């Protein structure tokens, strides 16, 4: 079991790392899909069957498509061009963005009471219970996530729909 976990983490972290390092956006996107599939496999390993399949259905099936369409619709210039290392601003911004995410994650991890030593019984959560939970106590969260996804989709449309009224019809 531990071996499977190690393999999975190597797959997830490795594909994520390579995705960041690559200059080819499509390759990065596909590697992210691999990363998501790895996370789904991790859920499966942890016994959360429903979440794993939902992860595959939504991330590998749908979100990957949104990402790829977004990449193809908004890409400008040559994707193989090396990044210019002249911008100090960029570095600062990356540090702020990455740092804040890392901070939130660290806070969440440190805030969780981790009791590794006591072996908890295997979680037995049926799909029916999960549905009841989602529709009952967590309905608000579900709705907010839905709205968030809709906003993201609208944002993608706004990004993609370039106003070409100032350009002549046959401009490239």
């Amino acid at each position: 079991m531990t071996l499977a976990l190690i393999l999975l983490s190597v797959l997830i972290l490795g594909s994520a790392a390579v995705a960041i390092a690559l200059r080819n956006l499509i390759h990065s996107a596909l590697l992210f899909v691999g990363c998501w599939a790895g996370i789904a496999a991790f859920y499966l390993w942890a016994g959360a069957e429903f979440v794993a399949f939902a992860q595959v259905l939504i991330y590998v099936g749908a979100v990957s498509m949104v990402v790829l369409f977004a990449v193809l619709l908004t890409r400008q210039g040559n994707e193989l061009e090396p990044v210019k290392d002249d911008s100090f601003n960029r570095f600062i911004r990356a540090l702020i963005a990455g740092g804040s995410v890392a901070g939130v994650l660290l806070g969440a991890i440190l805030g969780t009471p981790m009791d590794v030593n006591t072996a908890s019984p295997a979680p037995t959560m049926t799909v029916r219970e999960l549905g009841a939970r989602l529709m009952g106590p967590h309905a608000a969260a579900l709705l907010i996530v839905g709205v968030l996804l809709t906003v993201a989709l609208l944002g993608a449309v706004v990004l993609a729909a370039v106003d070409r009224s100032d350009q002549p019809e046959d401009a490239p």
Partner: protein
Amino acid sequence: MSASTDSFLERAPIEARDWLVQLLPAPLQWFTHHLITIGAILAVFGLFFAFTTVAERKLLGRLQNRLGPNRSGLPKFSALPWHLKHKLFGLTQPFADAVKALTKEDIVPAAADKLLHFLAPVLVVAFSLLTFAVLPFGRNMVPVDLDAGLLYFFAAGSATELTIFMAGWASRNKYSLLAAMRALAQVISYELPLLLSVVPVVLVAGTLSTNEIVTAQGGWSFGILPHWNIFTPWGFIGFLLFLVAALAECNRSPFDLPEAESELIAGHLTEYSGFKYALFFMAEYFGLTALSGLGVTLFLGGWQAPCDFLPFIPSYVWFMGKLVMMIVFFIWVRGTLLRLRIDQLTRLAWQFIVPLALINLGNAAFWALTASWAGPLQLVRLGVSLALVVGPFILLGRRLNIGRGPRTYRYATS
């Protein structure tokens, strides 16, 4: 219905597997158990795919008053002293096709993304095969009995979209990419109708497990009328919607616009040749078979026998029989209907199938809530459910046709 009362044929495949497994030492048993299942699925559905292609070509021929392929017999093996001269009705055609595809030159465009170009056909076959894991092929014969089996089916199915994109993008051909985008747009927009047509079944059966959905359809009224979902009003219309959405989802005629062979050069498969093309072809048929199998499972009672007195025929024979009927129907439709335009395709999805499927969801909810009604109330239940099917169908159908009367031709003489 316990395992001991089943006929010998019913138990034979499972007992053969168990016998083989127990021959091995204990650590290997779990592994071998699944390996045998995988091998059986690959063998059965590989052959099924091969003969589906030849059946499709022969049936299409007959539907158009042609003969179809009937020439390929057996090759002459020089080692054998005799030679079978009979043409075997052309049934060996798929093997000849396979040899041809294997020996063809594999052309990869110079500018192509070599790795993705190679990965796409491999992944598409892998993903389409994954969907077979949750189909109950017979009593006690579901490869993996998952609690969320239906969700798994659609999860594995939706991953094939990714491979369409990979194929189109990796070819480094603008027509391939455009065609891949068209194919994706079609597949994604029909994913919703497909799911919506399936949800009523889940709602009434109260489970996502394919095995339990089949079990829920067991039993007969008066010994001859099976309790399959297709014999309920919501199930019937749901099955029709499922058929349309499944056709669109596997890019089959009349929804084969992504690779319309008379207008495009195979769409996103333009840059594929030889065995890679054959793999895409194979995946398409696996997808069709899997979706047909899902249709059988959800609406046609899975492996259940249609009559009270027929269960002596093994359950897997019933499943395969229904599967073959579904495939034949798909071929029949392909030989009959014309290809839709892209605007007709999307209009059909958004203005007809999706609203009808949503109404059908309400219908199924009504059916599930009134399951306890008895006596004359059952007739009321049936009547209301029927009205909820027929009314929207006629109204939506009329709306779909508004302003699109019979076409008139100014210069043609009738």
